[in-house]
């Protein structure tokens, strides 16, 4: 095996202290959502990170960023928005029901689910509800317009929250977990209970099956140009091509970062065909799609647990990560 070029010296460790649920940059400020209900905000490089009790009575289950603020959903039923200054705002209270899915986008719109109820809140604060046929597991915003894909049992629904129209059901047998809408708007993709992904072309509704994974895919990320979808769930990063009208159908995915451990998180760089891959043994690699070259960000460290969160800043100069056992760190790429 070739010696990996290493970026490990460019990583500053952060002691998170609890299962890291999500990572984001709030503007320039790195923030981590934690399983013990707290949010860590690292406002300056020198000062210790500031801890905000976003869910004082509970645990954070899901987190999403709108670019400027971190939104968290907890087992206390609360949806909370945390600003880079540590301010918190309770957006919703589902009366103790777990918040299972959450998405946010830069205009301030967000959506969450609790049980069968999917709720969308537009930038003006108007909330709409869609009662799905079964518990909602995943949500994704369409790239344009106020529309959502909602993953549930036996399919996904396409929902316009601002209209009374019945959501459009895309059927496929089985339990659909996470949902994502391609930046091109032409595909929706779900991850599934049965170790694979399912997709539909839009508006043609042709099925796309992406299978062959040894474990469930629970993390997906689109490339900045929207032409590639990186996925977790295998002993390598699996990246599907979405260039043509039929997406990856009839094409083989790219594989890189092949290791003896499963990929648990993926995050495409915001401006280059480089993917960050986090593994179940705590290792993190950067993989360049064009030549499959690899850079080591973090060596394996099984006692730190699986990598559970990865996020790039908007400029693509820094990357934040966290693990199941409460380790975290901030990578700053060398300039030039």
């Amino acid at each position, binding site marked *: 095996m070739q010696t990996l070029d290493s970026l490990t010296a460019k990583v500053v460790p952060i002691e998170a202290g609890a299962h890291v*649920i999500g990572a984001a940059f709030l503007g320039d400020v790195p923030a981590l959502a934690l399983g013990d209900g707290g949010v860590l905000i690292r406002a300056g490089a020198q000062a210790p990170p500031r801890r905000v009790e976003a869910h004082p009575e509970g645990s954070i289950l899901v987190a999403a960023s709108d670019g400027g603020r971190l939104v968290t959903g907890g087992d206390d039923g609360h949806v909370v928005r945390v600003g880079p200054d540590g301010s918190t705002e309770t957006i919703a209270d589902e009366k103790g029901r777990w918040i299972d899915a959450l998405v946010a986008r830069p205009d301030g719109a967000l959506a969450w689910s609790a049980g069968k109820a999917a709720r969308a809140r537009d930038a003006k604060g108007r909330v709409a509800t869609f009662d799905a046929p079964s518990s909602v597991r995943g949500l994704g915003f369409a790239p344009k317009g106020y529309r959502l894909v909602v993953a549930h049992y036996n399919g996904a629904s396409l929902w316009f929250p601002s209209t009374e129209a019945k959501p459009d059901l895309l059927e496929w047998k*089985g339990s659909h977990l996470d949902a994502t809408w391609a930046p091109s708007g032409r595909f929706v993709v779900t991850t599934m*209970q049965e170790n694979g992904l399912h997709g539909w072309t839009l508006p043609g509704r042709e099925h796309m099956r992406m299978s062959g994974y040894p474990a469930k895919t629970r993390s997906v990320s689109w490339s900045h140009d929207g032409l590639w979808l990186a996925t977790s769930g295998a002993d390598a990063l699996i990246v599907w091509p979405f260039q043509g009208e039929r997406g990856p159908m009839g094409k083989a995915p790219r594989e890189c970062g092949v290791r003896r451990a499963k990929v648990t998180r993926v995050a495409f760089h915001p401006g280059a065909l480089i993917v960050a891959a986090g593994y179940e043994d705590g290792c993190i690699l950067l993989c360049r799609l064009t030549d499959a070259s690899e850079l080591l960000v973090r060596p394996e460290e099984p006692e730190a647990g699986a990598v559970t969160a990865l996020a790039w800043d908007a400029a693509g100069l820094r990357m934040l990560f966290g693990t199941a056992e409460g380790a975290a760190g901030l990578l700053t790429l060398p300039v030039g």
Partner: protein
Amino acid sequence: MADKLPVTVLTGYLGAGKTTLLNRILTEPHGMKFAVIVNEFGEIGIDNELVVGADEEVFEMNNGCICCTVRGDLIRIIEGLMKRKGKFDAIIVETTGLADPAPVAQTFFVDQDVAAKTRLDAVVTVADAKWLIDRLKDAPEAKNQIAFADVILLNKTDLVTPDELAEVEGRIRAINPYAKLHKTQRAEVDIAQVLGRNAFDLDRILEIEPHFLESDESDHAHDHHGHSHDHGDHAHGHHDHGPGHHDHAAGDHIEKDAHGRTVHRHGGVKHYHDEEMQSVAVRHPGDVDPEKFMPWINELTQAEGPNILRSKGILAFKGEDRRFVFQGVHMILDGDLQREWRPEETRESKLVFIGRHLDEARLREGFLACAA
């Protein structure tokens, strides 16, 4: 393996005393912390810090196996609970009175992420001594829960006469002679009889003889042996009465009950035959050929999986010094070579099935054809 969280599934028909047992488990001074998954959110009177409401969403796996159902909500809840790992030591899943235990149990074998972090310890069924017989007639769920159980609490015994109690015990044993049965009032039972059973652990499937002659006292004596990992030195003389409950010693009474069904009296407990749900035990006094047995058991559980609720076996494979042990839930089988046969043990091969409309003659014939 050792740090997998144990999961106890609590079933029982409405009003049998599940919540009483649950609260008893939670309030005993055992120093353990539990995450409790209940079937309705906000259920009153559960004395625990961490209570999670579940929707009991039963999903078919999209793998062509119709009885391969799982509890989708349970997968999601356990995934969420793992994010606060360390805050509890064990999980208790309470199901509704109408629930089939199989999808709950199967969740712990089918979902890789759940199986990696938790292990199913036992299915515990609470039955109402006064009403169980009626429920067995009119509620298929009640029968499933008895058939599926590893541990049965026959509760509210103070509300029935000794004769009625013997009757209901006989009915239970007609369906499931293998579960540990405890007769209780107000679900009063030693918690060690309910938790830490390792009922699905292959290393702990030590013997698969029916229990219908056992009293609570002999249960206890047996269990104290069962907790050690050296099981070689105690004989189960009280178990020794033939290959299954369909074979009875010549001295048994035979009588008919009010419905014309055959009733045997055996050691004070009435023996019934349940028309729908039975257990079948088959034994071969020697080795079986794994080349024949493995295809047979796989095909059998594929074809008959919907009807076979539980299966267990201890087998002597030809040319193999170790015992092959397996257990199954519907179509899902889990088997492994276990310890060596001891010199004082007779190499023999035994299987038990609990299920619906089992064709005993065919099972016996199929199994005996695997003899080496």
